[in-house]
C-alpha cells in the first residue's frame, strides 16, 4: 500500500518535470537591466558636464550671497552724504540752525 503510494508520487513527479520554465530572452533582460537606477558616480561619468554645472551653480550662489551681505553692511554708510553735497541740505546730521556767533561779536 505504501509502496503503491510512493510509486504514484514518483509518477506524479515525473509528470511535473515535463513542465519546463521559459528561457530568459535578450529583450526581457535588456528591459529589466534598464530599470536599474543609476548610481551617483555613474551619473557624473555619463554626464561629466554635470559636475562643471554644479561648480558654476555653487559659484553663482556664493557671489549672490556675498553681494547681499556686502550691500547690507554698507547700506548705513551710504546714507551719510559728503559735506557740501546737495543731499547734505536734506540731512539732519548737520543742523540748519547755526547760531550766528561771529555777527554778534562785530556789533559789540
Amino acid at each position, binding site marked *: 500500500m505504501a509502496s503503491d503510494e510512493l510509486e*504514484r508520487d514518483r509518477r506524479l513527479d515525473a*509528470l511535473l518535470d515535463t*513542465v519546463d*520554465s521559459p528561457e530568459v530572452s535578450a529583450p526581457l533582460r535588456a528591459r529589466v537591466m534598464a530599470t536599474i537606477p543609476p548610481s*551617483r558616480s555613474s551619473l557624473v561619468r555619463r554626464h561629466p558636464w554635470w559636475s562643471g554645472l554644479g561648480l558654476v551653480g555653487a559659484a553663482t550662489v556664493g557671489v549672490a550671497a556675498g553681494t547681499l551681505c556686502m550691500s547690507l553692511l554698507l547700506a548705513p554708510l551710504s546714507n551719510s552724504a559728503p559735506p557740501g553735497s546737495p543731499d547734505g541740505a536734506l540731512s539732519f546730521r548737520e543742523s540748519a540752525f547755526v547760531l550766528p556767533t561771529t555777527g554778534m561779536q562785530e556789533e559789540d
Partner: protein
Amino acid sequence: MLFAKDPDAALIRRIAEGDESAAGTFVTRKLHRVLALAHRVCGDPAEAEDIAQDVFIRVWKYAGSWKKDDAKVDTWLHRIVLNVCHDRLSASHRRHEVGAMELDMQADPGPTPEDALVGQSTRDRVWHALALLPARQREALVLTYYQELSNAEAASAMQISVDAVESLLARARRTLKERLLDSIG
C-alpha cells in the same frame, strides 16, 4: 540561526547603497528564477515578463528594507514575486481564477473532470492540471517543487505557517494525482 549563510546578502546590501553593478549581477543571477515562478503562478508568458520587470523595480526600491534575520534574500524575492502576481490578479479581477472556475464548472457535470485534458500532450495536460489548482495550492507546489524552496522557506514566502504549506501541498498533490494519474494514467 536558520539562515546563517546567504550568498545574496552582500549583493542586496550593495544594491541598497546604490551599486549599479551589484544590481546587474543580481539580475543575471535571479531573472530566470523570477520569470519561472511568475510564469508558473500566473500561467501567461507575456504577463510573466511584465511581472518579472515589476519585481526587479520593487527590489531596487525596497532593497534597503531587507533584513537578514527576517528571511533569505531568495525567499524575500519569492515573496515579492507572489505579491506582484497577487496585485496583478486583483487588478485584472482575478481573471485566471475565474477562468479556472469556469473550466471546473464545465468539467464537473461531465463524466470525468479530465475530459479537457484528454488529447493534449503530456506537458500540456500537466500544465492544464496545474492551472486548474486553486491559486494557493499552485503557489505552494511551485515554490517547493519547481523553485526548490524548503517548506519553511515557502511558508515565509507565502507568509503562512509551515503546517498550512504542508496542507496545501498535500491537497495539491492529491488533486493532481486524481486528475493526471487515476483517469488518464
